[in-house]
């Protein structure tokens, strides 16, 4: 076993930058494999001056991989660390594959839950609710809230994955992500309720309570029936209902 040869900082930055394109060529057979192999390439070039070893490493990163695109940053960082150990003889190529395949699913679940199902709805609803007061600046609010957290977390995941390798799982388990997800979801639900109420109040103005009732009925029917009928049917039904009953809106 030889001393671990670290990847140059510039290469690490290139790995991180390329990890932002991890889904560019998402395909059903390998899923994010092309993106993952692309991200790893600058690090592999540093670690394996021998061309044969580099090709073998590139080939093993073309194996199937699928994760949440943001959370994948932690696995990319950890894989770079493990590749350093492979290059120095401290780990085997199977260790890298095992690391990737064992973390992909739990990290995907964590990322989907936090970013797609909690942070994005909460940020979008906050912006929608703030629109009458902020006008076009509500767009900046949405991007500011979402991307400051998203980019911060993505960078932190990559750096921590690289520094801690397989120990990233333990660090994430102490990061209270499920609690933060629950909090954001409840916040989003509260904002959604307020937004629905604003829709009713706007429709009821001026002195048209019937229109407010119509909007409230559509909201309740939407919440109850949406999962059963799907968005296209619900949307055209709402449009038709509005056309049929909305004669007094102007």
């Amino acid at each position, binding site marked *: 076993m030889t001393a671990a040869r670290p990847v140059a900082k510039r290469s690490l930055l290139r790995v991180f930058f390329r990890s*932002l394109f991890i889904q*560019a*060529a*998402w*395909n*059903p057979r390998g899923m994010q494999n*092309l*993106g993952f*192999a*692309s991200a790893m*390439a600058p690090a592999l*070039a540093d670690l394996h001056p021998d061309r044969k070893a580099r*090709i073998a490493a*590139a*080939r093993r990163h*073309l194996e199937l991989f*699928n994760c949440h695109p*943001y959370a994948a940053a932690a696995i990319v960082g950890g894989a770079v660390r493990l590749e350093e150990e492979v290059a120095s003889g401290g780990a085997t190529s199977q260790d890298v594959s095992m690391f990737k395949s064992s973390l992909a699913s739990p990290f*995907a679940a964590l990322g*989907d839950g936090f970013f797609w*199902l909690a942070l*994005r*709805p909460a940020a979008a*609803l906050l*912006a*929608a609710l703030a629109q009458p007061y902020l006008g*076009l600046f509500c*767009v900046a609010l*949405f*991007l500011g809230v979402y*991307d400051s957290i998203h980019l911060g977390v993505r960078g932190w995941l990559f750096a921590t994955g690289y520094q801690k390798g397989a120990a990233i799982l333990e660090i994430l388990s102490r990061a209270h992500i499920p609690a933060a997800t629950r909090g954001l*979801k*409840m916040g*989003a*639900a509260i904002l*959604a*309720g*307020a*937004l*629905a*109420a604003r829709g009713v*109040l*706007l*429709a009821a103005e001026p002195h048209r309570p019937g229109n407010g009732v*119509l*909007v409230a009925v*559509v*909201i*309740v029917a*939407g919440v109850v029936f*949406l*999962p059963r009928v799907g968005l296209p049917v619900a*949307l055209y039904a*709402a*449009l038709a*209902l*509005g*056309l049929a009953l909305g004669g007094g*809106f*102007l």
Partner: protein
Amino acid sequence: MALRRRARLACRAVFPPGGLAHLFVAGVVAALVAGVAAVERKGALQLMLSRPLVLGPLLGWALGDAQGGLVIGIPLELLFLGGVNLGGSLPDNETLLAGAMTTAAVLAGEARGTGVDPPLAALALLSLFPLALVGRHLERRTEDRNDALFELAFARVERDPDPFPINLRGLVLPFVATAVICFAAAFFSPILAAARSSCSLPVASALTGSWHAVWALAAATAIRAVRDRRAPLFALASFAATLVAALLLSGRP
């Protein structure tokens, strides 16, 4: 600001709104902006620039009416808030719909000189919503075609162990598909403008009602988008509290 206004007036003099040259230039602008957004949606960065809430005003601004883009962007954002790309499942393509709808509605509003009003937005959604489903189908086809890129990368790994250029080729199809459709949407705008102009007052009123119904459905979708069994309860409590607060503040019984 004065410079921008002068530039806009000069543009209008060269390309009068509604004319073929104007539609062509606007179509190219829409194609570029929406094409980049389509790439950003899944393949690159994912900074949420492709979300309707951002793309609507951004594209509207590029076409001369950011506020009109916002009128469309917010309800579309809420309607598609629950659409999530989990594993191999694909949601409806909100970016394609937002791009095409903003292009058509903003240009139609500009041609009429009224901007994007609720009846125009409702007409645009009524006629263009299927694009969200078409977009999902196109995305699936694109992913199937990416299998060939995977095979190419595997075949070439001996010669070039860095597949980054091949990976980036996966961004081409989403860009082209969205750009072409949004370019075409610019030429749909005169039809939309004519349809809106032909609306009598009762029809326009009914379409306004439709737009309110869309907003209501968007609020319902937003509540559903929070996938937690306690979410409807929290939303209901907040709904009631907001109504009560508004009624108290307005001094009504």
